[in-house]
């Protein structure tokens, strides 16, 4: 036992096997040796050495055991023929420590079990029969032990798998709260899953089965992205589409020529369709080398995680749709206002864009930029309550007409007030006609009393009004419009904002030339008519 015990490690089952063998030894008065077949070069069991080779490896040539001869010659020990038995030993599958189950061999050394009479009067043949019987019993006990050990290892593997699943589900659920776009979710889930599945790469295909995103992990090829694209365009594409259509996760084996054609090292694929309700959102595909095919446990884990991802992604899509729809509804409303007055066509959109640009120059927060965009688009909604004959009147306005048109910021405010989600936009809309010196309307606020968003929208509004044609005058050039605004800085406009806006306009010439397309290069209107600027 001493010589070969080194082959038994302290790993799972190792020490317990040693204990079992020790008990048998002390019970029967035998020596039991154990050697692993795997591993090179294999150790020559002391039992064989002593009994079959009579203590000398040189006796090998004359030894009758073909297994021993081959074992010494070859790097790896050959299996025992036949049935894993020889006269004094038997082969047994030892509990696995690595990925593959290792076979090992137990050798027994002893003449007779302890307590047997010294002179039993048995014939050699009878003794051989008894020996055989005892050896059989020992073999049975050890085999049974090894089977239980294998069972234990399988259970441990399942526990590991459950831990992994649990952790990934926790992480994905936690992440889904903070993520806004489905794409972020896909990336996160693919990254976590490919680690847990030991996938060499993972990719996501959208519902039309187009290549979408790839997370290469242990990338061996130079161009993983291309390989993935080739995979989807090759014959595998149909197979993947079929799985996506079925709605249930499946494993696919890519044939060698196909894999070579696509320069793939991953012959085993796990395809997990993303389904939410009746809708297919696409599929996640994980790849491993053909030597490491996916198991049912891998499939269950991927299905559970991608199921969670599908639900979250679906909700995100619905939310995005809803958001888009409100944008579109507002767009329709604004178009209806613009249609009342052909001169103001596109005005609201441009005011929104200039407001956002000015907001960016002021480095306001992302949410505030959104608010400026909405405010810009909606600032003139109140014109719905202004009579068409006043709105489109060429030339100057009477006192009564001017008083009528001045109502529109308040009407805008009243129209938008019931919309809960636009609460932050209201101030900007109501006060976009206030003046820095307090001469504006509707509330006659002065200076910084006027909310910043209102001053921003006003600056953008006046600039666009000046550079657009109106029923009562033609459009001014950019330079003229800016100089008019600079003249009234401090009286009508916030002087700091006007100064900043001049820079914003200069920058926009490069960044957004389309904002200038409708503006004349030279002045067509020589003078500002009475009544000031009507934004």
């Amino acid at each position, binding site marked *: 036992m001493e010589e070969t015990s080194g082959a038994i490690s*302290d*790993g*799972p089952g190792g020490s317990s096997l040693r204990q079992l063998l020790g008990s048998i030894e002390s019970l029967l008065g035998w020596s039991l040796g154990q050697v692993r077949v795997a591993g090179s070069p294999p150790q020559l069991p002391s039992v064989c050495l002593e009994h079959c080779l009579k203590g000398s490896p040189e006796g090998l040539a004359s030894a009758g055991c073909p297994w021993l001869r081959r074992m010494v010659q070859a790097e790896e020990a050959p299996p025992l023929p036949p049935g894993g038995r020889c006269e004094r030993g038997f082969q047994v599958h030892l509990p696995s*420590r*690595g*990925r593959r189950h290792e076979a090992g061999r137990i050798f027994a050394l002893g003449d007779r079990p302890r307590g047997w009479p010294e002179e039993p009067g048995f014939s050699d043949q009878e003794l051989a029969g008894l020996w055989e019987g005892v050896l059989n019993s020992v073999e049975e006990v050890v085999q049974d032990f090894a089977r239980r050990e294998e069972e*234990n*290892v399988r259970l*441990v*593997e399942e*526990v*590991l798998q459950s*831990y*992994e699943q*649990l*952790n*990934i589900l926790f992480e994905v659920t936690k992440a889904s709260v903070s993520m806004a776009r489905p794409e972020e979710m896909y990336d996160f889930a693919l990254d976590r899953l490919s*680690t*847990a599945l030991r996938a060499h790469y993972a990719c996501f295909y959208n519902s039309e089965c187009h290549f979408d995103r790839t997370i290469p992990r242990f990338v061996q090829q130079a161009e993983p992205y291309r390989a993935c694209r080739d995979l989807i365009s090759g014959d595998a594409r149909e197979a993947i589409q079929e799985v996506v259509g079925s709605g249930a996760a499946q494993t696919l084996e890519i044939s060698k020529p196909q894999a070579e054609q696509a320069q793939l090292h991953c012959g085993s694929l796990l395809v997990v369709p993303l389904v939410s309700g009746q809708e297919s959102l696409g599929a996640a595909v994980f790849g491993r080398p053909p030597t490491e095919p996916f198991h049912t446990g891998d499939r269950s884990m991927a299905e559970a995680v991608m199921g969670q991802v599908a639900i979250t992604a679906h909700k995100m899509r619905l939310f995005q749709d809803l958001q888009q729809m409100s944008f579109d509804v507002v767009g329709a409303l604004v178009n209806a206002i613009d249609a009342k007055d052909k001169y103001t066509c596109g005005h609201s959109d441009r005011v929104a864009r200039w407001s956002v640009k000015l907001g960016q120059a002021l480095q306001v927060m992302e949410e505030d930029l959104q608010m400026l965009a909405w405010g810009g688009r909606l600032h003139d909604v109140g014109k719905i309550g202004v009579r068409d004959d006043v709105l489109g009147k060429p030339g100057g306005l009477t006192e009564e007409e001017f008083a009528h048109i001045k109502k529109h910021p308040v009407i805008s405010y009243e129209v938008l007030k019931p919309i809960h989600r636009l609460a932050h936009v209201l101030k900007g809309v109501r006060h976009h006609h206030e003046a820095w010196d307090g001469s504006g309307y509707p509330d006659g606020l002065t200076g910084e009393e006027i909310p910043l968003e209102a001053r921003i929208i006003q600056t953008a509004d006046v600039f666009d009004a000046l550079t657009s044609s109106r029923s009562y005058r033609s459009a001014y050039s950019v330079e003229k419009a800016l100089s008019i605004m600079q003249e009234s800085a401090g009286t009508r406009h916030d002087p700091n904002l006007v100064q900043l806006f001049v820079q914003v306009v200069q920058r926009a010439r490069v960044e957004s030339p389309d904002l200038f397309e409708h503006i004349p290069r030279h002045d067509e209107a020589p003078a500002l008519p009475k009544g000031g600027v009507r934004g």
Partner: protein
Amino acid sequence: MTRILVAEDDRHLQRVISLWLERNGYQVHCRGDGQAALQAFHEVSPDILITDVNMPEMDGVTLAKAVLAQSDRPVGVIILSCRVDMIGIGVELGDQRVIHHAKPFSPSRLIEEVEALRKEIADQGQCRAEVSGQSQYGRNWHGRNLWGH
């Protein structure tokens, strides 16, 4: 081969952890409490200690502190615990080689962390080897930050 010492009083969990680490190519030694683990630490001088917190005889935090103080070579520590108050243990001990990992542990993350620690320790070991020839810098490796690593 990277040697890992596992201190965990739950026999089943000890087995799960050791099998998983062996699968990933590490040499694993297991002990059932802090006292036994500290003794084993000096016998097998592991590169990384993975320890539970609540254990008989000696708890995991005491063990971690003892190991960090007594070891004459770089060692990484992973505190494996279900206790929420252990989350900031690395910061508390003021050592970047101490990582907290929540139970139930994530097998794949555990391997990632073991690998990260192994690399860190290898770097430190190299740093120590470079410096050991210069007796005027007779510090132990704990002072590594002082020479800019």
